[in-house]
Each structure stands twice: as structure tokens, then as C-alpha cells.
């Protein structure tokens, strides 16, 4: 398994998905070697072997997230890798490591996640002949949020998708992009929606109503708290959310917006809010982890996923787990697996404002959305995803044996 991050050293949903998928696969009987591009202890993981492809610390890697292709690596003092200037350099070291790994150990399948590890996956397939499964959590089209994106990344994605024996897409939306934008035959792509492991939230956490004390105070005054827990990038469509909250506030004045996260768009959003005269209704937390992150979901009544393009959108399931009513753009993959939600087109500010006011002014609506989505998200299981993966591994392996027989 070729990945880029695992909790707690993850910058987003990719690491979470890899963690749970691997765990479920291990339960299905798979023996997994998981390669990450940094060195750090993963004491919480005992169901697979983790390989550290470089001596870089996750701190070196944080800026690189699983998402950005343009940044520079600032090497921590003490790192023995010194010739790494950017993500391409990390990928080079990563691929070399994978080459050595497949030289000394045999594998039945190579499972590579996103463009970050596709080159290493291609190399491993060339060296071993094992089938390559490319798992697409996001494409450069998603990350670019309507812009061109990085041509090098596009090219790597195209190569990986072409060379792959099978492709897993995390949603129908993503499958469409793979077929339409990269010209990959549809029957090579199987959709496997992400899931959520509710037991992963059972870590002794309890909500104490204190972290967001001011928001709790507002709720006592009848406010409805709308939240987004995300990176502040164009892809996430937060500008539309802020505008919708301004519109909704004109009609119903007890709405607060919690924007949990950080990113390049933050200053723009702050400025927009003040131009719209609603700074006072918006709470910027900065990047949140751990308890602050859990509490953000808990203080919230309505979770909005405003993405312009979202292959899946795991945070929506997390929000459902924490008792939120969900409003999700039609451009987000997670909307394909949930019914008890409101959906809107990412640009449709009026509709989003309507939905926010509708939920805020009707306890009956709010409560039924919350309760029903709780039942739905619980049906989504990583075990089902893992079972499908195992079937795919076996079928590609057999197909190959036949070819070489």
C-alpha cells in the first residue's frame, strides 16, 4: 500500500481513509506493507507494517499536505535527507525506497493512493509485474477548484490511470472526471465510497460545552450554529457559504458561522465578511485538532460542505456522527450516499440561504435531519469497502496469471 500520510501525522482526509481502509483489509486477512514518505512513530497502528521512505520528519512534510503541489520543503535540523527542495524531491526518494522494497519482498498487489504515489506504483508494477490498483481520492481538477491546475500533476495522474490495472474512485463524481477528463474506459473504474468507523470516536472524549463557550452562549439565546470544518481553499467554496450566511442573516438574525480550519483564502474570507457586515457572526478558529476539532462539530447545529468539487467529503460523515444536520453541495461525492440531507449547487447562494433559514427556524426539520442521517451514515462500513478491495485484488491477480499462463 503506497500512501502519503497516516494519522496522527495527516493533514486531511486521505490519511484517515488510508488508516481505516488498511485496518479493515487487515481484518479481511490482507497482509499489508504501508509506505509513508516521512519518519515518525505510529504507535496506534499494529495491523500492518509501516515503512518510512525517508528520514524527513512529518514536520518537513506538513506543508506538503496531501494536497498541495506547489510548496518548498524546509528541512528540519537533523534530517539526513538534504537534497529535497520540493514535493518532487520527496517523491523521488519515496520511489527509490519502493524500488528497494519490492526487490526484497513479494507482493500480490500494489495499491497506490493519489498522484503522490502513482510514480512509485508504476515503478513497482514494472519491477514485479504485480497488478497496480490506483485509488483516486482527488484529482488535480478537484484541487484546482475550477482553475487549470499543475500540468505535471495532470501528467502523472494520466500515466498512473493509464498504467493501472484497476482504478478505485471514491465517488461517481470522481469516476466521471477520470473517464471524461483523462479518457479512461469506464469499465476500468469501480466506485467505492469511503466509509466511517464510528468506533474510532470512542476514545473517552466527552463534550463539556466549554471550548466554544461564546457560541454556546449564543445558542442559549436561540442562535443556530452553522459550521464548516475544512481547509480554506478555493476548492471548498467557502466564499459562497459566507455570502449565503449574509443572505440568511437578513431574514433570520440568529445565525452564527463557525469556520474551523485555515488556508490561503482566510484573509479573503475575513475581508468578505466585513464587507458584508457580518464579521460579528463569524468565528475563525484557525487550524483545529483533537478536542477543539471534535468540539467544533459538537457546538454546531448545521454542517455545510460547500465544496466546488469534492471527490468524497469525509468530514460530512464526521459531522453526522456528531449530531449535525447536513447541507452538502451536489458537487460533493458524499451526497451520493446520504439521503437525509439538503443539497444545492455550490454557486446557488439563495438556495443555501433558504436551507439554512429553514433548518434554523424549524426544530422539527432540524431534528429529523439529524436523526435520519445518523441512521444512514452508520450503514457505511469500511468492512464493505475492504471486501470489495479484496475481490478486486484477487480478480486482477487471477487475470494477470491468465495473461502470463
Amino acid at each position, binding site marked *: 500500500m503506497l500512501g502519503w500520510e497516516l494519522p496522527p501525522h495527516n493533514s486531511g482526509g486521505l490519511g484517515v481513509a488510508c488508516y481505516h481502509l488498511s485496518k479493515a483489509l487487515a481484518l479481511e486477512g490482507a497482509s499489508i506493507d504501508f509506505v509513508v514518505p516521512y519518519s515518525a512513530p505510529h504507535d496506534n497502528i499494529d495491523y500492518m507494517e509501516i515503512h518510512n521512505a525517508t528520514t524527513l520528519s512529518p514536520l518537513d512534510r506538513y506543508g506538503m499536505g496531501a494536497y498541495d503541489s506547489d510548496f518548498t520543503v524546509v528541512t528540519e535540523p537533523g534530517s539526513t535527507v538534504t537534497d529535497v527542495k520540493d514535493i518532487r524531491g520527496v517523491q523521488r526518494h519515496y520511489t527509490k525506497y519502493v524500488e528497494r522494497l519490492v526487490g526484497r519482498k513479494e507482493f500480490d498487489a500494489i495499491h497506490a493512493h493519489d498522484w503522490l504515489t502513482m510514480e512509485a506504483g508504476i515503478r513497482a508494477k514494472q519491477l514485479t509485474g504485480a497488478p497496480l490498483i490506483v485509488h483516486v481520492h482527488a484529482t488535480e481538477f478537484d484541487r484546482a477548484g475550477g482553475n487549470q491546475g499543475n500540468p505535471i500533476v495532470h501528467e502523472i495522474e494520466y500515466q498512473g490511470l493509464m498504467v493501472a490495472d484497476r482504478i478505485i474512485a471514491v465517488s461517481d463524481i470522481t469516476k466521471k472526471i477520470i473517464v471524461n477528463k483523462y479518457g479512461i474506459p469506464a469499465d476500468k473504474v469501480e466506485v467505492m465510497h469511503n466509509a466511517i468507523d464510528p468506533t474510532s470516536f470512542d476514545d473517552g472524549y466527552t463534550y463539556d460545552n466549554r471550548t466554544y463557550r461564546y457560541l454556546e*452562549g449564543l445558542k442559549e439565546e436561540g*442562535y443556530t450554529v452553522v459550521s464548516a470544518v475544512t481547509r480554506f481553499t478555493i476548492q471548498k467554496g467557502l466564499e459562497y457559504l459566507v455570502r449565503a450566511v449574509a443572505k440568511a442573516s437578513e431574514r433570520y438574525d440568529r445565525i452564527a458561522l463557525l469556520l474551523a480550519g485555515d488556508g490561503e483564502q482566510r*484573509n479573503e474570507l475575513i*475581508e468578505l465578511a466585513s464587507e458584508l457586515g457580518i464579521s460579528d457572526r463569524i468565528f475563525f478558529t484557525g487550524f483545529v485538532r483533537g478536542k477543539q476539532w471534535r468540539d467544533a462539530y459538537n457546538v454546531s447545529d448545521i454542517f455545510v460542505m460547500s465544496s466546488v468539487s469534492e471527490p468524497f467529503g469525509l468530514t460530512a460523515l464526521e459531522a453526522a456522527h456528531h449530531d449535525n444536520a447536513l447541507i452538502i453541495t451536489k458537487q460533493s461525492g458524499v451526497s451520493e450516499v446520504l439521503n437525509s440531507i439538503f443539497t444545492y449547487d455550490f454557486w446557488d447562494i439563495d438556495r443555501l440561504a433558504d436551507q439554512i433559514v429553514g433548518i434554523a427556524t424549524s426544530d422539527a426539520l432540524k431534528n429529523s435531519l439529524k436523526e435520519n442521517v445518523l441512521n444512514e451514515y452508520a450503514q457505511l462500513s469500511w468492512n464493505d469497502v475492504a471486501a470489495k478491495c479484496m475481490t478486486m485484488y484477487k480478480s486482477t491477480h487471477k487475470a494477470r496469471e491468465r495473461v502470463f499462463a
Partner: protein
Amino acid sequence: MAKRGITLYLHVHQPLRVRDYSVFDTAIDHNYFNDPDPLSDRNNEKVFRKVADKSYRPMNALLEKLLAEHDDFKLSLSITGTFLEQAEKWAPDVIASFQRLVATGKVEIVAETYYHSLAFFYSRTEFERQVEAHKTKIRELFNVETSVFRNTELAYNDSLAQWADEYGFKGILAEGWDPILDWRSPNFVYQPEGTKNISLLLKNYKLSDDLAFRFSNKAWSEWPLTANKYTEWANASIEDSPLINLFMDYETFGEHQWQDTGIFDFFEDFVGRWISNPDNTFYTVSEAIDANKPVGELSMPATVTWADAERDLTAWLGNSMQQEAMGHLYALEADILRTKDADLINDWRKLQTSDHAYYMCTKWFSDGDVHAYFSPYESPYDAFLYYMNVIRDLRWRLHETHRTGALNG
């Protein structure tokens, strides 16, 4: 015929910067102004101690020396309440040195708002309370009465002058800005439009800013500025007129222009040269007014400040963040004052200091004039977020402790 005089007026101020006050502090921790990080630029004690060493101590020592050496050397100071409170805590010797200066009888204290606020533009009653508070503080520490007024950032208009006239001030200070003055010179005393007994002193911004802004600028064609050259300029400027009003931040000496630029030596040299001419002297602001009858009326209907090329309030109230922040702050006035909770009221007033709004200024993004602005924050957006969180916490205290006001502002 009275002597030709320089009216030197220095403005002494330090704000209480808001620490990195997050959503997670709001409604929990009511400490806004004490940054625990000893290295932070928001650590007011650190900043104060640094500026005390670089500017207040050496400059006061120099001023004391010049006052003793030259009978004719005089100056005026405005010292904000937020400065005095910090000096009392962290550098009482600096207070003592200012007291010695005032005790010479040749250093006049100018009145202003205690909190260096823009309250005049939001609440006339709050503004007057702060002028009173400042008068009281000056009386307590220096045992003198103030009689000439300057508003924060020299923000001035006709209605301010009319207020000061009715209040009983004999003088008021403003920027001598060309578009207002037209053919007139800032080197005379004027009478503000619509007033009876008050005189207006105008800053000679060319000669003032030569020191305040340009002195150490090596790209400036006149660099290095010598006392000899500056004396020539002063002589040229004052010809046929009675006054040169040099108004600037006190911190010009040692903080804005560091000691290694030669600013202290320059200043000592210049004072000596100026006074060596028997026709020349220095005036305090009151003496300048007493010695010179107004030559005419002057009107400034729109607000003029001493900042930027625009000389307006846009550095403080120009963008929507600044307007929102100040709007929310002043909206709390009645609820806050009603509590009679001294801590709460003081915190609310410390937040009125104009520097807070200045840190939210974004106009230098378009000017490209980044270096003209100083902020202890990473960005104006950070300054805004911290400040808004503090306003919310004030509301929380009103709500929790005093059961007045709602959290929704």
C-alpha cells in the same frame, strides 16, 4: 516685535497591544493585554522596556541637559494615559524624568484623550470623559493644568475646534496641510472658523517630517541631514513669519530614528545653532499663542490628520474591518458604563486606542508602502480577529457578570 520661535511639540504614546486572543480564549480568559510570550511583539512590557532604553531615557536626558544649558529652549509634550500607566509599572524612572522636565517650567503638557482614542468621532460624551481623565492624570503626576488641546493623530475639523473653544482651551493643534492652506503659511497663528477665543497652531509638515520620516533615509536626496543644513531651511521657512511649528512623535528620537543615525547629536547641535541667533527662540504652545494674534480665520470642514499622503482617517477607519470593529466597540458604551465595573470599563477604553484600528489597515497593500506602517501582528486580518474576539469577551462579561446586554451585540 516678538522673537522668531520654534514651537517644538512631541507626542509620547504607547498603546496596550492585544495579545493573540483566539476564539478559544473568548468567554474564558479575560486577559487581553498581557502576552505571556516574552519575545512576542504583542508583549507590551517587552516593547515598553525596549523603547524606554532606546528613546525615553536618552532623549529625556538630552532634553534635561538642553533645558539647563539654554534659557530659551522650551518644548511641549502630550503624554497619553496608556503610556503613563505602563511607565508607572515598568519604568518609574521615566516618569520621574518627565516630572523633572515639567518642573523646569519650560515644558508644557498638551491635553488630549487619556486613551489616545478616536472617541470624538463616535461619542462626544465618552470623548469628554477621556479628556477629563487625562487632565486629572496630568494634574496628579505633574501638578499642572493643560490649556492647549490636540486630538488623537491630530485628527481635526471645525467642529472639534468649536468644541475645544467652548470647553475653554486657548489653543488647538492641527496639520498644516497645503490643500487647506492654499497660499497661506503654517508659520502663523490662525483662528478656527466659528470660534471665539481659541487659536490654531499648524504643523509645518515639511520641516517636521524631514526629521520624523526622512532623517535616516539614505535614498533621500538630502541625506545626510546636518544641523547646519536644517538651520538654513528653518531660516528660509521662517522669513517674514513668526513661527515654525515642529510637531512629531517623541519616539522619532531613538526609536523611529535610531541613535546610530545621529539623531540625538543632530538635535543637540540644531538647538544650539538656532538659539545662537539672538533673534531666535523656542516657544511652548501656550507662549506661541500668547505672542501671536491670529492673522485670519481658517476652516477645515472635513477631518484632517497628520497621517499619510491623504492626511485623513483612512489609516484607522478606511476599511470595513476597521469600521465594523469600532462600530461594535462603541455600541457597547451604555451597557459597559452602566455596570460601574472599573476593570471592565478600563478594558473597554483601552480598546479604543487608535492603534488597534491602525493595525487593521490594509491600504498599504495598494500603496505598496508597507514600510510606512508598523504593526506587531502578522497581518491586519489577525489583528482584526483577535480584536473581534475581545469585543465578544466584553459582551460575555456584561452578560455573565452584570446580566446586561445580550451576546448578539
